[in-house]
């Protein structure tokens, strides 16, 4: 466990700068293969539309993974993440042309004992909040 951010250097309200992540159909195909989630709503437009979706949507877990990367890059160690949970509030729609953009930001919400903090994440795509109650508990240095 070698987080690079120091517990003493953050306060409740400390903001983690926003980052954007591009999501393309190719990412979803790779994610399907790597995760084993081959639900066709994540790669076949006709199936997505047949169940009432506007287009192919990203796996919720793909979006959650970007949030995990955001937090672990900030902390400096993926193993410093002790707890991570989200609710999927709105799908990330990924058109064939141009894909989608995911914007993730974070804020230190609480400071706990043992050098741990709770980070609240915000994730948006096309102006929609795609995650709610997205929180990670992280052990800092």
């Amino acid at each position: 466990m070698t987080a690079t951010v120091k517990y003493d250097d953050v306060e409740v309200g400390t903001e983690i700068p926003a980052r954007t992540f591009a999501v393309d159909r190719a990412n979803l195909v790779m994610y399907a293969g790597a995760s084993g989630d081959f639900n066709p709503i994540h790669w076949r437009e006709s199936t997505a539309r047949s169940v009432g979706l506007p287009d192919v949507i990203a796996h919720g877990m793909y979006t959650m993974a970007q949030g995990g990367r955001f937090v672990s890059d900030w902390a400096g160690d993926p193993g410093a993440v002790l707890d991570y949970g989200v609710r999927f509030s709105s799908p990330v729609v990924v058109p064939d042309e141009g894909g989608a953009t995911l914007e993730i930001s974070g804020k230190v919400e609480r400071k706990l004992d043992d050098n741990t903090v709770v980070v609240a994440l915000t994730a948006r795509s096309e102006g929609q909040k795609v995650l709610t109650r997205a929180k990670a508990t992280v052990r800092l240095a």
Partner: protein
Amino acid sequence: MALNRDFVGRVFPPGEPYEVGRVKISEFADAIGDPNPVFRDREAAKAAGYPDVIAPPTFPIVMSLYTPGLADPELGLNFAMVVHSGQSFAYVRPLRAGDVVTCTSTITEIKSVGSHESMTVRTEIATVEGEPVCTCHNTLVERGA
């Protein structure tokens, strides 16, 4: 269709153990676009204090997303109408290459949310030696007609 409430508390014992492989971890890291060397390079992982490459925080989904027991027709879950509505992981430590783990899943809650049915499954991931590694909570919603 209403899910069978008798399944609340149902425990699905572990199936075949899952062996966490270095190539699978790097494939998963590539798929999520995370270039962190601790997912790929054993020396980098060791320098960070780990015995071998570690897996990204959401990697446990690979072995916990589908609980085969949920296909029991008595439960009444229509997979075509299922969406993933929530997920959490509580880690004892990161999963790492060489771990051989099992998943023990329990249906912890079934409830109605409007016309939908919501079900939460807790999965305990532990090594075959009995060391707990991660607790996952997976909430699924079966959309109503």
